């Protein structure tokens, strides 16, 4: 089996095709949950503290974002530019990646290629061992969460210290991130104080839940780690192909400590992060902070290309990760999900995410973007409930700084799921049978009118104009909502009588038959 990194290769539909065609690797790592979304969501919805924390936090970020986005008269043009640059980058991804490798290597760096999470973890573990380190400091990075790097390092006897404040809270709380940008969004400050008191060996026992006090406790804890670490590990927000430059955008400055203090720096980056030109950064450095933290500019932007002699890390590595991305690239409708710059604006405006939080999505990528990205990275059958975890309200598309049409991808993935399921089984399931029956009835006005007459039996269930209980699966509706009682007369009956047409009942219309 060969992996074609960054090349839009077709994913074979049938087993026998895989002998001839190269196969894009499937994403492995923290991309799948143990429960389907509706089950996990039900659990999350019952947590009133979580609901309150999320409602408060997302409303705050939403308002900040709306304010700073409204300041820019050319916001829509910026979005279009960001989308166009990403489209261009993905159209020739192989070329840009090779150019990035060449430029980064020419400046003294080393580039590694990893087809999936397992390979990436092996590469990083080997590099840390070669540096002789048993502890590494980490910059907040989604991709290392995706591949489960901390667990892989722990298995090799290496402890990874998260230095982003929110990631540290998640790590100390033995928890999982629930938001792309604000991984501990599900925690409030009282919970954070409790975690620090329990898990920070050197913390002041009189710690209060005052935010500056919490930040100071984390600062004291982390400063010692920065000064002793020999290896730093980061992700990358952008990689510029023409200059071989990596770029990390952050708010706390802890990232910069990790990027500059250790002797060895290892960066893991998804292959979709490459952009062709230095000038392209100008677009994204405007789009990203406004969309993510609601700031005009982020406090810290670090950039490096290979090594700078006698300044900063002298042993610099870049691990380019596929882990399902080439398979996403092969999907013409879905590939725009690779435009994502991980700003999390779609999470903050999503009415589903706001109520369930990120854990319900199973994957490290939650919310609307996760609902499309995770199933495409893993193969839909491994995340089959995620494309349905949306009411298709469209708020995510409007908020996306790179114009990813998430609702359309969701609809597309639902179709892919239905079609793949149908190919894999002889008999249609109950849903497919119901849908086929409904389509058959709707394909003819005569049959539709007959179905309407049948539905009028529902009048027998009505009490006071409403139905309080319907049989399964519609009981899922009447568990919390009444259903309307079918009226005595449908619209088409009313029309027929009103317009005095004796041939009015659609049964009489030959033209009404299905094709």
């Amino acid at each position: 089996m060969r992996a074609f990194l960054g090349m839009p290769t077709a994913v074979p539909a049938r087993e026998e095709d895989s002998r001839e065609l190269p196969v894009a690797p499937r994403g492995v790592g923290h991309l799948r949950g143990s429960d389907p979304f509706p089950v996990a969501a039900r659990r999350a919805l019952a947590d009133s503290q979580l609901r309150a924390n999320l409602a408060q936090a997302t409303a705050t970020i939403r308002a900040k974002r709306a304010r700073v986005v409204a300041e820019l008269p050319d916001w829509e043009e910026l979005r279009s530019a960001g989308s166009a640059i990403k489209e261009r980058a993905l159209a020739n991804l192989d070329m840009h990646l090779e150019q990035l490798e060449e430029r980064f290597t020419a400046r003294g760096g080393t580039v590694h290629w990893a087809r999936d999470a397992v390979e990436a973890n092996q590469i990083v573990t080997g590099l840390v061992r070669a540096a002789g380190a048993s502890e590494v400091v980490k910059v907040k990075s989604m991709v290392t969460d995706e591949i489960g790097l901390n667990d892989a390092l722990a298995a090799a006897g290496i402890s990874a210290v998260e230095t982003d404040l929110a990631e540290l809270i998640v790590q100390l709380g033995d928890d999982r991130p629930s938001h792309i940008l604000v991984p501990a969004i599900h925690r409030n400050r009282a919970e954070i104080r409790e975690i620090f008191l329990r898990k920070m060996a050197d913390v002041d026992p009189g710690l209060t839940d005052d935010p500056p006090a919490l930040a100071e406790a984390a600062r004291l804890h982390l400063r010692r780690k920065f000064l002793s670490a020999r290896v730093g590990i980061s992700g990358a927000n952008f990689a510029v192909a023409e200059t071989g430059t990596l770029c990390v955008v952050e708010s706390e400055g802890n990232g910069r400590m990790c990027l500059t203090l250790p002797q060895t720096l290892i960066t893991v980056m998804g292959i979709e992060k490459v952009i062709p030109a230095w000038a392209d950064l100008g677009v994204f450095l405007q789009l990203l902070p406004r969309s993510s933290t609601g700031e005009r500019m982020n406090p810290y932007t670090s950039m490096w290309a290979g090594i700078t002699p006698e300044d900063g890390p002298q042993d610099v590595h870049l691990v380019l990760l596929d882990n399902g991305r080439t398979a996403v690239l092969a999907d013409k409708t879905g590939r725009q999900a690779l435009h994502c710059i991980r700003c999390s604006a779609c999470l903050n405006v999503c009415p589903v995410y706001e109520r369930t939080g990120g854990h319900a999505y199973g994957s490290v990528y939650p919310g609307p973007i996760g609902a499309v990205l995770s199933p495409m990275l893993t193969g839909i059958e491994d995340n089959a409930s995620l494309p349905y975890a949306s009411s298709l309200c469209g708020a995510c598309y409007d908020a996306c700084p790179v114009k990813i049409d998430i609702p359309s991808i969701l609809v597309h993935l639902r179709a892919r799921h239905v079609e793949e399921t149908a190919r894999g089984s002889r008999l249609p399931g109950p849903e497919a049978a119901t849908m086929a029956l409904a389509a058959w009835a709707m394909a003819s006005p005569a049959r539709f009118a007959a179905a309407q007459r049948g539905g009028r039996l529902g009048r027998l269930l009505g009490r006071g104009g409403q139905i309080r209980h319907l049989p399964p699966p519609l009981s899922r509706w009447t568990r919390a909502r009444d259903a309307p009682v079918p009226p005595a007369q449908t619209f088409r009956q009313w029309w027929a009588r009103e317009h005095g047409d004796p041939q009015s009942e659609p049964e009489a219309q030959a033209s009404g038959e299905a094709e």
Partner: protein
Amino acid sequence: MRIALFVTCLADTLFPQAGRATVALLERLGHQVEFPRAQTCCGQMHVNTGYQREALPLIRRFADTFAGYEAIVVPSGSCAGSVRHQHAMVASRLGDGELASRAEAVAARTFELSIFLTDVLGLDDVGAYYPHRVTYHPTCHSLRLLRVGDRPLRLLRHVAGIDLVELPDAEVCCGFGGTFAVKNPDVSTAMLADKMRNIVATRAEACVAGDSSCLMHIGGGLSRLSAGIRTVHLAEVLASTRQAG
């Protein structure tokens, strides 16, 4: 102008009053409306649940049935959105380019009611009278697929006697989402609960929207709570007059 009504399968079957009001309103404004009886359903439920192949005959039926009309008026943002944004996409995805181009031509003449009234007929004031306290819920697909903007509110503000109250967090989804409501009933209900809390806070007598489907969801929740607030289609408010009101 030869105007056809696409009443939608839902309004036809469960909310005929929305269709009757649309006819009454357009006739009062001096237009003749036809109801092509070959119409059934736009296929949106099938497309949004993943059953595109099953939707294809419905898309073909829509294109055939409405081919001869200058304007097709739909009292639903969601169904008009499906016609405009999904029909041609599904046809071309399934390899029927001929149908895709016909669907595109028909879609361009398909209008959600408030867009038809304001953009095609050029009216903000349709001469309606509705002496009630109401709040308006802008449905997601009218807002973000069709970009109706403030058109429905402009129409409502011109209704005589109306007491129009702003709905807090109006643009947040009510949680219906078609089969989402039964595939993810708990999340859907949580979204509905917040929508109802905001509606109740307005102290309105009625919640008005341009989609029977969202109104069925919101109305089903309000009825279960015995909240004493009814749901009314925008067409019914606009069709209401001093004589008939």
